[in-house]
């Protein structure tokens, strides 16, 4: 077990009151496994992984629960200790490659900086490693690319550079926060291939955050669906795509247009919009948008429960009980 998150809660104090961005999220990650985390904007996908990275720097944030990396508790770990893990054993790829790199330094310099922060190697040794990494992420001319500034590269190339940077210290855990969202579809496919290939060569476990079900179906071993700060369904990729249980998961899958057969006249959409985290309903957060809600949904929040394939829904629990 690489990562074990238990009952993680992240809340922010704001002018309008306490916002609970993450409300009791638990998940595990095995070695060299790819976990897809799916959900709409504001569902807490990114915040929960930023918490794992120790990158929530907002002084108004409180983080509760437990995050164990290789058995070591990360919540409350001194910043210096956390820094030693970050970029070294736990690395992150960000959503927008346009802004993720410091504009005033070359790609080579920025990757070498990370290597030298964690490994006591000489500058020239670090640069050799950078060239090798850039070749690995399919830069056509790695040596020349090292002396390029971020603004001289295309979005796809920048994302490759960010990936090379994340891999520079052979991390055991790689967190990818919507790495393909800001890219063209053709470039996206290349990046996904790259992540898959690197998982094989570097043996890194990957947490892949996305709102794109298509990406999940291509890449993930296991999937976790999030809604309003909670996990609503988890299971293997096959579980989720062949037997989606939570009404939200089903709605998400239903809104993907079919590639074959008759095209629907209108693409089904989920009615309503995600609730404000400031004013969550008392019962199930998805309740107001749910087509199958009934009385219990109004008063209590359903638990996810145990089991490899589980959904946090009273209807599902009822269906199983009646079986």
């Amino acid at each position, binding site marked *: 077990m690489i990562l074990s998150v238990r009952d993680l809660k992240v809340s922010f104090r704001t002018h309008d009151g306490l916002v609970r961005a993450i409300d009791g999220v638990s998940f595990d990650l095995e070695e060299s496994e790819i976990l897809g985390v799916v959900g709409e904007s504001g569902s807490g996908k990114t915040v929960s992984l930023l918490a794992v990275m120790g990158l929530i720097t907002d002084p108004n944030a409180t983080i509760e629960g437990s995050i164990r990396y290789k058995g070591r508790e990360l919540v409350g770990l001194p910043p210096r200790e956390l820094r030693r893990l970050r970029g070294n054993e736990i690395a992150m790829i960000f959503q927008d490659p346009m802004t993720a790199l410091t504009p005033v330094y070359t790609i080579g310099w920025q990757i070498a900086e990370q290597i030298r922060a964690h490994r006591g190697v000489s500058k020239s040794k670090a640069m050799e490693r950078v060239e090798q990494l850039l070749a690995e992420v399919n830069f056509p001319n790695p040596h020349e690319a090292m002396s390029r500034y971020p603004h001289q590269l295309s979005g796809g190339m920048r994302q490759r550079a*960010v990936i090379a940077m994340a891999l520079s210290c052979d991390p055991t855990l790689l967190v990818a926060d919507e790495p393909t969202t800001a890219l063209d579809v053709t470039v996206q496919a290349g990046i996904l291939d790259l992540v898959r290939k690197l998982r094989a060569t570097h043996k890194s476990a990957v947490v892949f955050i996305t709102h794109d079900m298509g990406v999940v179906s291509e890449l993930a071993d296991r999937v976790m669906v999030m809604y309003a700060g909670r996990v609503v369904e988890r299971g293997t990729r096959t579980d989720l795509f062949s037997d989606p249980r939570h009404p939200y998961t089903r709605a998400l899958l239903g809104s993907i247009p079919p590639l074959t057969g008759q095209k629907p006249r209108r693409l089904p959409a989920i009615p309503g919009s995600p609730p404000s985290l400031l004013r969550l309903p008392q019962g199930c957060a998805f309740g107001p948008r749910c087509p199958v809600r009934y009385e219990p949904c109004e008063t209590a929040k359903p638990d996810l429960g145990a089991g490899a394939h589980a959904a946090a829904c009273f209807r599902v629990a009822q269906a199983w009980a009646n079986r």
Partner: protein
Amino acid sequence: MIYAILRRFGQMLFVMFGISVIVFLIFFATPGADPAARIAGRNASPEVLAAVRHSFGFDQPLYVQYVRMMEKIFVTGDLTSFVNRGWKVVPAVMDSIPVTLSLVFGAAILWVVVSIVIGIVAAATRDSWLDKLLMALGLLGISMPVYWLGEVMNLITQSRYHDSWAFSWVPPLGYKNFSDDPKGWFLTLVIPWITLAILYIGIYGRVLRAAIIESMQEDYIRTARAKGLSETRILFRHALRTSLIAFVTLFGLDFGALVGGSALLTEVVFGLHGIGKLTYDALQNLDLPMIMATVMYASMFVVVANAVVDFVYILLDPRLRTS
């Protein structure tokens, strides 16, 4: 590169030409500014006026007068004051330059160094008591006008406490040539430097603090944190460099203006006969040749300072480098 420099030089010449024409025309278009009447004195007879007009060349077309004046400033250097015909304008400006340069350079070094330290410390300890104290002191410095602060400084160091051990080293007001007496040069300028710098330290410290805090919100700072870099390194290597752009812009403008004569108040308070004082006296007497020479000198410094700022931009930000 050479082409860019030449083009820049051409622009500078054009700007200075425009300024000279405007100043020249304003002078002749100013109501009641008939230079002949001024030179001839009160109650001069029409014959005397006509004679003065002829002898100063005011009866010639404006463009001839303009060209002759420019020739006398830049080629022959023998332009004389309208107020005192034995007083040559170009040497008068040349004599004032070292005074103003000594004052402004020293103050600039002081305010740049101190305000960078203050800006960094305040940004790094954001919202702490230290940050609040520094910003309050900065505001105090901005709020104290130079003519008041300078007089208070003089009151303390020249009379009230001059006999105490703390200020007995302060020499009487006035300027000493660096080549004649380096120690005297330094000692006479210490108090003017501090006085002039205090205002700018406040402004620059606040500007830099705000710029650093803004850069610290950027995505690439999050990337730098994810790389496992220390907060110190993130601040100095990733946030500071982009923050300096605003600082440099401001510095170029202020430095050019001060060297060009805006240090007038400081010069007057401390009895330094610099460019500011020379320009002020020339304006009081509507002494066109002197005004023209000092304005040409000032515009040259403003234009050069702007060119230097552009050059520093390119050093700071590779995105501005065009091939």
